[in-house]
């Protein structure tokens, strides 16, 4: 087996161009296997806790919100929030507002420490009669802002989180794309350094 690998390497990895392409190919294969495998398993709930769930208002921590029943809330201020803590990749909400909420946005963070900022925020996408939010992998906590005016009544028909989708299972983020671009380069660099060390050693041995 080792001989075969050696023969293959000598025959096909004889130029830096081929070695670079091989580094990319190898890393992409490994990354795809890991990424697809991990996210597929996590999306059906075996690891990471990203299983599909139906939520009610009771699953959220209300802030400046008057909870009428498990499906209905009334905003007490212009900054009413519902906070959910737990692994989450996406959320589909079917709901109605008594008046225009102005902004329907969701903040997220990776630590579950109630720290939210505008750089980690998603606007709702309207898909059919539902609002759809998608979060990056590793999201641990979200904060749903239920409108910019007080006294808005929000009636939730359904709240579904972690619906398995193609983008959550096979989706590639900009960060992933960067990993795929840069890490093989690093592998190539390390490989070339090792190769040059081996060559030098060989030459020294031969000279001796």
């Amino acid at each position, binding site marked *: 087996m080792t001989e075969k690998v050696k023969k293959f390497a000598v025959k096909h990895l004889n130029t830096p*161009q081929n070695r670079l392409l091989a580094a990319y190919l190898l890393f992409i294969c490994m990354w795809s296997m890991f990424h697809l495998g991990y996210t597929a398993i996590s999306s059906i709930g075996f690891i990471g806790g990203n299983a599909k769930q139906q939520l009610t208002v009771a699953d959220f921590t209300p802030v400046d919100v008057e909870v009428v029943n498990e499906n209905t809330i009334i905003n007490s201020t212009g900054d009413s929030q519902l906070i959910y803590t737990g692994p989450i990749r996406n959320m589909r909400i079917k709901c109605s507002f008594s008046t225009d909420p102005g902004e329907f946005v969701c903040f997220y963070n990776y630590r579950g420490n109630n720290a939210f900022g*505008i750089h980690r*925020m998603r606007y709702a996408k309207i898909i059919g009669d539902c609002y759809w939010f998608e979060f990056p992998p590793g999201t641990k906590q979200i904060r749903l802002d239920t409108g910019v005016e007080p006294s808005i009544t929000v009636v939730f028909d359904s709240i579904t989180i972690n619906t398995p989708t193609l983008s959550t299972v096979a989706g590639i983020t900009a960060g992933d794309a960067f990993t*795929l671009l*840069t890490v093989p380069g690093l592998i190539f660099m390390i490989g070339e*350094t090792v190769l*040059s060390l081996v060559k030098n050693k060989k030459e020294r041995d031969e000279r001796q």
Partner: protein
Amino acid sequence: MLALIPLLMLAFFSIAVKDRLKTDTMVVHFAALMLSVDILYFAALADFLRPAAMVVFAVIGVVSTAGVFSVAKKGKSRINNYKPDVYFILHNISCVVFSLIFSVKKPALYYWDELNIWGPSAKAVKLFDRLYSIGINPSTNDRNYPPGNAILNYFFSFFDSDYSEYVLLISYAFLFLACFALVASVIYKLTKNHTVAIGSYFVMLLSPFIAANHLPNADYSSISYAYGTTMVDFNLAVVFIAVIALYFGERNRKWFLLPLIYLITIKKNGIFFALLAICVIGCYEFFVFKEKGWKLKKAVVTCLSAIVAIGLAYGAWTVHLDYYELPKQEKIFNLKDAQPKTEAKQAVDAEKTEEISELPVKKRVKPRETSIKAIFIPSLRTERYNEILDEMKWYFINNKEIVFCTDIVLIAFLFVLGIVAAIRGKKEWRIAALFTVFGITAGCFVYSLVIAYQMQFYNDMMVEYPRYMLSYYFSWIYLVMFMFLTSEKIRDSVKNMLITTVLTVSLVYVYGTGLDYTVIDRPQNPASWAKSVTEQTKKVNMVLEKGDRVYLVYPDQDGETYIAYRYNLQPAYAGIDTLSTGIDFSINFREKIDYTSDRQYYNVASPQKFTDVMNTYFDYIYVIQPDEEFYTSYSELFSDGMTTGTLYKVTTGEIPMQAVIL
């Protein structure tokens, strides 16, 4: 994704001709790109942009096809001659990855200068197939901005039927990646060390993030978003190092003149960087000691040819501006006296006149204009100039806005590293390298003075300062890195270890800051506003035709609304300022109001005069959001009484402004 077609054509072209030119594929690729944009630049100055682009692509296409046939003909035995080098492969892989990210993410422009200058100029050139300095300027208020970024976008979006913001950003990314790959390729050529060269490529690839990531939450400037900005400050540094690398890569050819010409078309500051590059090249030409003595004649020829090249390129631009300047039109309307003043207004004015007459009469002194000589002669500097210099000193010692450390620490580090690289470099280059290190350090001081002059001239705020300095510091960082990695007497193992460490730290740093908002992704809040304007104007754009003139009605003095709509309504001329007529519509309908005032709106024109002006100069009125007084004065002229978000056709009928059904 059609932006990949020019890239692919260039790739085939480079592979086809590299053997004949006896150089690396990446060098040919970069030189061909620069030659193409330079040709387009000169052709655009003569208003032959589209024909020139067609000829350029035809030539690239024919040569590439001939190259492919030639490879097929020669068969397997010669195929190795056409194998592209590692850096060319790396460049193309990177371009594909960037294209994928950009086409999925579709980053948007949102920052003031992007909506006012860099986006509109590129859009105008794409949609009109001519420079914005010819005829009515559909983009910015200032037709003097050099068109380098717009030409680059034109080249890469040639096969796209429409203009897209993300394609403009992709064209920048392609330029960056080409420059980085070229530098890496030249480093390899000089050192024969792949580890160092590949490492330098990735460090440079991550450098825009490193420049941006230290202020991840600052929404002030889109330069904070690395590859997601159309601001050209970083482009200067990137093209500067490409000029130097091409000089070292092809020392017996003058190919470095190609990016040198492009450098001055990026921004006015580009002239400084072009001169800096000539100084560096001059050092390596003058002070390289050969066995037969100093090569003075060759040095003079090289430097003179570079100066002539940039002189021609910039001279052609100024000639173009003069040639195509529109004659100022006579004012047809005298708007100021149109409406009789109300009694209350007359009383207020009379009171003001009395107050003024009671004040002691002072001799009026014209504010002193700063001469460009003030850069070098302190006595000529104005108070504002000196204030800026004082603030710069504070920034220099205390502020950490460029990279991780203060500017003074950065400069000290670069100076020391430069000296080490010079001393450990090739023996024949040692004096030249030392001159370069001292020269670039002194150049930093001169550049600061130039920036201070520029800031007081344009009345810029200090918040712009780090962005301006970024161009210089990164030029310097790249240059020192290049010198260090190509120095002969530093052992390969040391270089390998260092570059691997720097790359690993860079990767960890970039990932650690949260790629979700620092990578080529639109910052959610400001961009969402800009995107909402794009959405609103989509329907309006279906009605408007190229060259239609649109008067915008928006809240008084809200400049950002104005520039965003003007940009999005292109290719219509949506300007209320002058439409190149010399008549400033934006102030003739109101009194000039100071920014510190409570922005009281005052209409000067009567409804009849307003109608006449609209009929003479405009085809449409787009009511974005009228303020109360505008509404009270003119609503009767609008067919539906004037509603927000409606486009009106200007007619000569009884009710002149007729709502257009969208």
